[in-house]
């Protein structure tokens, strides 16, 4: 019965297992569903969707099965997924940029549709397929002069002449959800339970013991509640190169703030690299001197820094290396990071760039001071483990930079 519909639901990307399907059959069997299509629509939706984010996919599958509307090309959705996590784009010289072919909008549309039909997997950093960080006319965060941006990520060269329109239901969809629940569960392991609360609870054992000693006269004994005493200082890079990772950082941030049950979370922002001042707002108007921040940190505070750590070596290794006007600092960024590292015994750095690109000079230098973990659910679990003193259990993997200049020690910056 309607098994085709089941297949269609799965083709649309809904996770309808046998269990869900049998429940639906059961509901029909019991006569709980009236003999009308709208009612079947509502009931089936209630049983196979788990979130309003699924409604859009359900609608597509329903229309496809009952009204013969073609399912949107499955490739499109996959393409959207590849684009959610962009690769960093290598800088191109003006000559290289000029060499890329310029296309008008009409040509571009045609080509896009052709590629969609042909492309079957993720591509990053290339020049032909739909992907990220490349020089193909299609994709995200790329460097083609008249390219077409696919999806809603961050702009690369900011010259996309058209953005492939997403369907109108997309605002309910949540493919992108980097599971905040999983992160929150990870963050919850960050705890120092101590009986230090001002709220008291009944100490049953002591009360009974004291009452017994008292010859049966009740003596109530109270003790402070166990509370999580963990404090965390978060330092977030809000620089431009972090824009593509904004959603991941947001998910992490909210999990930290809400789900963690931490005693206190202090948040500071920096641009590329922390210098003499940190900022207490994302717009970077409210300064706070790094020294003041470090001085006021209570003992046993955990430090979590989030940033790509990717910058020109000057910005990290030279005095007055800050590229932003007004941030000039006579102390090189790396020394500032050393100061920070010295102030926090327990510290981690979460990096949104995939681990195999961490060979970059600036990233390696930072990782020596602050143990670095990838900003993924798995990475966060490991980072929390490291903060709790379980050490770094990751297997070392080879790290090398994909950019020739970083590998070449004689390269002239």
């Amino acid at each position, binding site marked *: 019965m309607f098994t085709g519909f089941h297949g269609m639901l799965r083709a649309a990307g809904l996770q309808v297992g046998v*269990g*869900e399907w*049998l*429940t639906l059959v*059961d*509901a029909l069997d*019991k*006569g*709980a*569903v*009236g003999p009308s299509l*709208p*009612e079947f*629509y*509502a*009931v089936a*939706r*209630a*049983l196979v*969707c*788990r*979130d*309003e984010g699924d*409604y859009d996919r359900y609608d597509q599958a329903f229309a496809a099965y009952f009204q013969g509307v073609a399912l949107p090309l499955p490739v499109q959705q996959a393409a959207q997924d590849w684009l959610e996590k962009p690769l960093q784009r290598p800088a191109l010289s003006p000559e290289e940029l000029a060499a890329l072919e310029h296309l008008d909008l009409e040509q571009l549309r045609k080509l896009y549709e052709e590629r969609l039909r042909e492309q079957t997997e993720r591509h990053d950093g290339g020049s032909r397929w739909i992907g990220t960080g490349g020089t193909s006319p299609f994709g995200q965060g790329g460097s083609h002069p008249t390219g077409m941006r696919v999806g809603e990520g961050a702009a690369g060269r900011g010259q996309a002449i058209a953005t492939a329109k997403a369907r109108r239901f997309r605002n309910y969809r949540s493919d992108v*959800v980097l*599971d*905040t*629940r999983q992160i*929150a*569960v990870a963050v*919850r392991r960050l705890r120092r339970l101590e009986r230090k609360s001002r709220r008291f609870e*009944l100490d*049953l054992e002591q*009360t*009974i013991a004291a*009452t017994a000693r008292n010859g*049966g*006269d*009740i003596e109530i004994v109270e003790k402070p509640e166990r509370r999580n005493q963990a404090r965390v200082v978060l330092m977030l890079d809000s620089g431009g190169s972090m824009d593509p990772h904004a959603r991941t950082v947001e998910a992490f941030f909210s999990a930290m703030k*809400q*789900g963690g049950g931490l005693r206190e979370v202090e948040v500071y922002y920096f641009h590329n690299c922390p210098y003499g001042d940190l900022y207490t707002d994302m717009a970077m108007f409210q300064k706070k001197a790094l020294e003041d921040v470090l001085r006021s940190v209570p003992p046993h505070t955990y430090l979590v820094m989030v940033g790509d750590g990717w910058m020109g070596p000057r910005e990290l290794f030279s005095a007055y290396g800050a590229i932003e006007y007004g941030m000039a600092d006579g102390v090189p960024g790396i020394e500032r990071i050393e100061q920070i590292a010295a102030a926090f015994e327990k510290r981690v750095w979460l990096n949104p760039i995939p681990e195999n690109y961490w060979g970059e000079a600036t990233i390696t230098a930072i990782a020596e001071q602050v143990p670095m973990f990838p900003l993924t659910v798995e990475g966060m679990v490991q980072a929390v483990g490291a903060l709790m003193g379980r050490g770094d259990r990751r297997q070392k993997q080879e790290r090398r930079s994909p950019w020739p200049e970083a590998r070449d020690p004689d390269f002239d910056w």
Partner: protein
Amino acid sequence: MTADATLPGQKLPPLPRWTGTARYIADESLRSTVNVAVALGRPLLVKGEPGTGKTLLAQAIAEGLGLDLLTWHVKSTTRAQDGLYLYDTVARLNDSRFGDRDVRDIAQYIKLGPLGQAFERAANGERVVLLIDEVDKADLEFPNDLLHELDAMRFRIAETGREVVAGLRPIVVITSNAEKELPDAFLRRCVFHYIEFPDETMLTQICRVHHPDVDDKLLAIALRQFLRLRGVPDLRKKPSTSELIDWVSGLRLAGIDAEKLESTLPFVGVLLKQEKDTQRLGRGDWSRSAVTRR
């Protein structure tokens, strides 16, 4: 796992189809969903914008089916155990010294929570509606802790060894504001419904229920202004149905006539609760700016 409204050995009294109540207007998909959840004996998980009547739904179901309603308001400190029963050790300790009750009888110090009561009444052959309100407020593991009891429909009171077995499944309505994501295993066992924001026709119906004698013209204009306000981009908190109903009461009490409402937006504080939102509208003339925004 087959979820059946009747557990072995029990006869299910047939329940009428639920069709909403005079005070609660439900659209067709919500009605079907409620009936299917009742028939399958599965918890109904309701999400939706604040103020779209998630909590009222449980009341309306109880009223419509002629059943009692038990409510369990979940707070950040609520544990799953609290819903089943509490053992009042302090009272027992106190009684051992000062009371005249027989302290050897532990059962009298066991107080059933809302879930426990629902099970107990079901064990006596009485169906109730149980509302678990704002399940996402509690600890992350809270929904998981509920799973076993909701599945097995039974629990054991460790202190007395008594087992409460619900003979038939109570109708469980769970609301969530999506503050936290719910675990997958929990979602799999629920019938899910997202209450969409009602359209203009339904809003008119809803207002009519609460204000049966409101002037047609006033209601039409109030609704138009309200929907326009909801359409303003980047509002931090969009006004909801319950706020609309309050607003219409305010307009009527103050005797504001329809013409005046065309150009002004009185009592905006009833609709907008965030200072930033009010400031947004404060800039420039409301009616003109709203028109250009469209």
